[in-house]
């Protein structure tokens, strides 16, 4: 027996499977749910772009302004940045071993992803609302 704290842990706490930081399952599950969303949204996005090959500026704007396209585009952007943060987080945690660099990068990718998602959503809204 190495530590007493381990022995005193309620077995129910371990059985719930939340892991040491109590966020591992949530991270894993969110990554899979966003992945499932991106399978559908990604294929839809590729089809949308291929349909716009011949489009000039006005036609491209009109396509993005369509309500369904605008909604799905915003959904795609938010899901993509969310999924990207979850994935990059794991890569950083695996390979960056200097603690301050690791924390800096973990915070930086979150800031950048939120900014990216907001900027993208605003761009779609400006087009959709004709501003």
């Amino acid at each position: 027996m190495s530590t007493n704290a381990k022995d005193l842990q309620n077995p129910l706490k371990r059985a719930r499977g939340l892991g040491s930081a109590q966020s591992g399952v949530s991270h894993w599950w969110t990554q899979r749910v966003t992945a499932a969303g991106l399978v559908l949204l990604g294929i839809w996005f590729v089809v949308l772009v291929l349909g716009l090959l011949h489009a000039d500026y006005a036609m491209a704007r009109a396509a993005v302004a369509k309500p369904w396209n605008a909604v799905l585009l915003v959904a795609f952007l938010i899901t993509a940045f969310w999924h990207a943060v979850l994935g990059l987080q794991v890569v950083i945690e695996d390979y960056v071993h200097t603690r301050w660099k690791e924390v800096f990068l973990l915070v930086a990718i979150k800031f950048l992803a939120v900014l990216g998602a907001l900027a993208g959503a605003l761009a779609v809204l400006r087009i959709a609302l004709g501003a």
Partner: protein
Amino acid sequence: MADTRRPLSPHLQIYKWQVQMVTSILHRATGIALAVGTLIILWGLLSLAAGEDAFNQFKICTGSPLGMILMIGWTWALFYHLCNGIRHLIQDAGAGYAISQFVRSSWLSIIVSIVLTLLVWAYVLTAGGAA
């Protein structure tokens, strides 16, 4: 303090290369590439919202030789991460873990992603002006 004299597991150069290693490494690599590549989508949308001049500049950049190479790379990264991501989702559900299935699905991810990339770019180059 961690005991640094503990035995270390061998690193990549020790192992014989197998396709399952390649798909795993590529999944990470394409994930990082796509996270950066999302910025291209963002750039396109922002320029579409900003005005015709900005959008034309975006089209010139993505349609240039270097831009086309990047876009082809981006397309393959997307399709590879999509195919292998679906493979991982199936494996997360507990299926496909026999070694023969694992190897076969690895090759399937690689081959299908290349075929989809070729199909999309054959369509782009024959049906429309680039980007």
